[in-house]
């Protein structure tokens, strides 16, 4: 039991960064396309 307590928890930051990148990259692409289209309201 004491051994379990002395072990430091695994570093989850790489996993969290990967997960956010996984969903963030396509969302950024969608937002880029959206901004490109939305600017047509002022230029079109």
């Amino acid at each position, binding site marked *: 039991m004491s051994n379990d307590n002395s072990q430091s928890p695994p570093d989850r930051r790489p996993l*969290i960064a990967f*997960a*956010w990148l*996984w*969903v963030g990259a*396509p*969302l950024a*692409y*969608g*937002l880029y*396309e*959206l*901004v490109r*289209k*939305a*600017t*047509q*309201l*002022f*230029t*079109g």
Partner: protein
Amino acid sequence: MPPAALSVHLSIGQAYAWSVFKPPLESALGLSGTQSALPFQLGIVMLGLSAAFGGTLVERRGPRWAMTVALVCFSSGFLLSALGAATEQYWLIVLGYGFVGGIGLGIGYISPVSTLIKWFPDRPGMATGIAIMGFGGGALIASPWSAQMLESFGSDSSGIALAFLVHGLSYAVFMLLGVVLVRVPRTEKPVASGPSVVEGVQVSANSAVRTPQFWCLWVVLCMNVTAGIGILEKAAPMITDFFADTSTPVSVTAAAGFVALLSAANMAGRIAWSSTSDLIGRKNIYRVYLGVGALMYLLIALFGDSSKPLFILSALVILSFYGGGFATIPAYLKDLFGTYQVGAIHGRLLTAWSTAGVLGPLIVNWIADRQEEAGKHGAALYGLSFTIMIGLLVVGFVANELVRPVHPRHHVPAPRQEAVDVERQQPESA
């Protein structure tokens, strides 16, 4: 947990980009506009039905099971559609995308809701806002992506089949992240603060639908969504009609830009307003959605055709409230009914969305057609629709005012609730 929820919602949000497939399907399979809309319409009906009837099962089996079902159904829907397009059997596309895929939409939509609320009990509005913002973002990704794919593969039946196949496989891989990462907290975190209506109350889904609070919120959601769809449905022709007779008419390209801007407001409203509700309370934020929303409609009706910035700004605010209404409702349900079966209750409440999805376009399109027949044009085509929308928002406002804490006779007895919570959380907490 938020990326897990987002991976599912960003995928199923593709449903709103179905229109990209309509023209190629119509020319490749010789379909009418009404026929090519069938897979989407059936998909939305199945979304409402599967969320309503599958909600309790989702609560019992947990979010990982639900996300797996959503992944299998949503991807299989595309694969069946690919087979349908390749063999030119349109009924397979309707069955695949509409029926099977629609079940994936409903189960996927509610799958992360109660888990997110349990992870972030102090900020349920922000938590569900992130996921439900993903549903809005799904169309932003899918729309240009699907269009580019059709351009590369071709718009004939084999090109469409290949596009469906790539969609099915890609979304399966993308949603897998949610299935792998989703986790229910081992113990429900205590709420430190927050302007909830009631703390510590737990109500089952079956009891919730027998309370006036559930039906008040049903009316609130239905009216708010109807008002938003009223703009969204005819946004491009509406802005063109409003300024047709002015010195600064709106071109088709600029109207497309306006539609894109509305999508951005819809998405931003989901996270911004829902997070704000954690600070000012759910009842107050719906007062804003419905009360200020009615005021914005009034501004458009009275002065919209004389000021383009006013028209655009008012429409953006209405659309941000539309998105906010969707994203805040799970947190409102949590305040009233607790976390016990909030996902199942949310699923049943989504029938209000299905109703509004029929009501909103019906009001705006039918009235605009009648006004056109009567010889009206420009902004006059929409005056009556906007007056009706204001009326509906006032009805929603009154329904929100009628929301009171749930009567104790509907509460789940504490020992039973704990037993069910333990049983539900064990398989998911590893």
